[in-house]
């Protein structure tokens, strides 16, 4: 079974500052994918960033970057130059690479991030 843990239910950051959201996971698979999704008050789930486990280089998307520590099974999200529009619930998710039912996403419980003006 796969598990994803987000230990920070709520966080806040001042506008223009940097914040890091934590995520740990557990899987017996060696090939898998990790994702961060954001869900603003509009409730639309938006893909923020994706990381392939076999790639050592950390993924980056503009102001969003990850710190992927495979041995520690840690996958944190760093948001630089935080903007008011970054206020949302952030979910960490894990998917294994095998086809079939194992392709389903396992989500963490979420971290509510509030960017303060």
């Amino acid at each position, binding site marked *: 079974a796969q598990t994803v843990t987000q230990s920070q239910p709520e966080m806040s950051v001042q506008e223009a500052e940097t914040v890091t959201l934590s995520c740990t996971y557990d899987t017996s698979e060696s*090939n898998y*994918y990790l*994702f961060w*999704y954001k869900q603003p008050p*509009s*409730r*639309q*789930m*938006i*893909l923020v960033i*994706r990381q*392939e486990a076999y790639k050592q280089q950390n993924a980056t998307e503009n102001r969003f970057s990850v710190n992927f520590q495979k041995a520690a099974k840690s996958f944190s999200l760093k948001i630089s130059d935080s903007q008011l529009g970054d206020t949302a619930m952030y*979910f960490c998710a894990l*998917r294994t*690479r*095998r*086809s079939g*039912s194992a*392709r*389903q*996403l396992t*989500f*963490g*419980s*979420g971290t509510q991030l509030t960017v303060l003006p």
Partner: protein
Amino acid sequence: SAVISQKPSRDICQRGTSLTIQCQVDSQVTMMFWYRQQPGQSLTLIATANQGSEATYESGFVIDKFPISRPNLTFSTLTVSNMSPEDSSIYLCSVALGGTSTDTQYFGPGTRLTVL
């Protein structure tokens, strides 16, 4: 990515009635998924819907309660049957884009259901 729409965006229903939620995507996709997000909670997978085959339901979800149709590669419906207040949730569809083992899921805007 893909453009995914859901109808209705929200609804308020009476106990004992049924609601059908539609999910439309602007490109052909093999796998579509239906999730439930109860208030203040994370997402829980209800079922996986592949075109041309029966939907695969996760533990705790049954076809009689959540019948799913997948008539073609761009459309799916989820029906919430014989509703009770416990069914009040956001229901989201998602599609898997990419290769067989490398796909990424993209989500629709969700349907907020309130059952009185």
